């Protein structure tokens, strides 16, 4: 009866990830669910970008969080739940792609262009349906690792150090991969952003 009346601290949007991780590690399922709700949108988008298929991304998202729950005790840097779970998502996506066996697993062509002028006006950039299609196609030409690194940096705001930790890479490698991914993305999107469509 006393246990029923015992109150745990409320989970609010201000509750930091680190506190939720520690509570989830003690078996509080509400804390893990809060982590899920906080990160599921980003993780699913990350997986959709890697897998390029919505239904696969849904399944991979569920698998990612199920693995995260199973391995949560291993997370000792409590505040780094986001890079940690994105690292798991990356592994899940690569496994799924190996099963599908029709995606680029090796590094993509490094012969990327260097000229970048003219540049678009950032305030006039509008992601309409056509541009989104080109964007998706451009992302699809990047190798899995390169795409994942770029997404972690630009879409999910991870620092280079966090990406390096998630990938098990050195920081210069992360920077190099993201730089190359950016150049390729840029070369493919720039004509559509500056009106110089080919």
């Amino acid at each position: 009866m006393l246990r029923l009346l015992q109150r745990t601290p409320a989970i609010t949007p201000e509750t930091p990830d680190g506190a939720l991780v520690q509570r989830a590690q003690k078996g509080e399922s509400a804390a893990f669910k809060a982590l899920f709700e906080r990160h599921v949108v980003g993780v699913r988008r990350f997986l959709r970008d890697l897998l390029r298929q919505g239904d696969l991304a849904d399944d991979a998202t569920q698998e990612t969080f199920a693995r995260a729950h199973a391995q949560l005790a291993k997370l000792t840097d409590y505040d780094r739940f986001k890079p940690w779970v994105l690292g798991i998502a990356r592994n899940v996506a690569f496994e799924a792609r190996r099963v599908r066996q029709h995606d680029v697993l090796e590094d993509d062509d490094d012969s990327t262009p260097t000229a970048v002028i003219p540049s678009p006006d950032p305030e006039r950039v509008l992601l309409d349906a056509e541009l989104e299609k080109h964007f998706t196609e451009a992302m699809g030409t990047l190798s899995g690792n390169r795409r994942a690194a770029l997404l972690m940096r630009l879409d999910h705001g991870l620092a280079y150090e966090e990406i390096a930790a998630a990938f098990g890479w050195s920081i210069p490698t992360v920077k190099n991969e993201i730089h190359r991914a950016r150049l390729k993305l840029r070369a493919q999107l720039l004509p559509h952003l500056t009106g110089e469509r080919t």
Partner: protein
Amino acid sequence: MSRCGRTAHLEAVALGEASPTLAAELRAHTKSCALCRHELNWLESESALFRQRAGRDEVAQLWKGVASRSGLETPPRDWPRVLVAMAAAAALVLMVGNAAPRASRSADGSPGDETLESSMLMTPAFFVEEESCSKLPSGVGFQCSPVVPASFLASR
């Protein structure tokens, strides 16, 4: 990419990670350096594209799949406990309230006022119409008010 030595810092400006001082300094620099200006334009455009994509996301109800794979049940929340407690308290009050008249009835062997009241209120015959509603002209509606029998009022 540009070859200006400050290019490497532009990413931090575009992503909002640079300090206000550094950001202001680099933005001022871009006014005189075409390479850095174009680079910053691109980086900010790129950032805008990713932001716009993120704003459109929809997430299906995926928690059930996670919960079933992880053996997690839907966690109980605090508010249902409060509701359960309130409902239990209300039920207790009702039980005590209902038990009291029964006790008085059994004491004198005849039905008490409360029993009469509740049974009468549940009986259609309790309502005596002053005038049959069917006799009223159409559109008069709601003029058939139930009348409490004088005998009942007298017993109160």
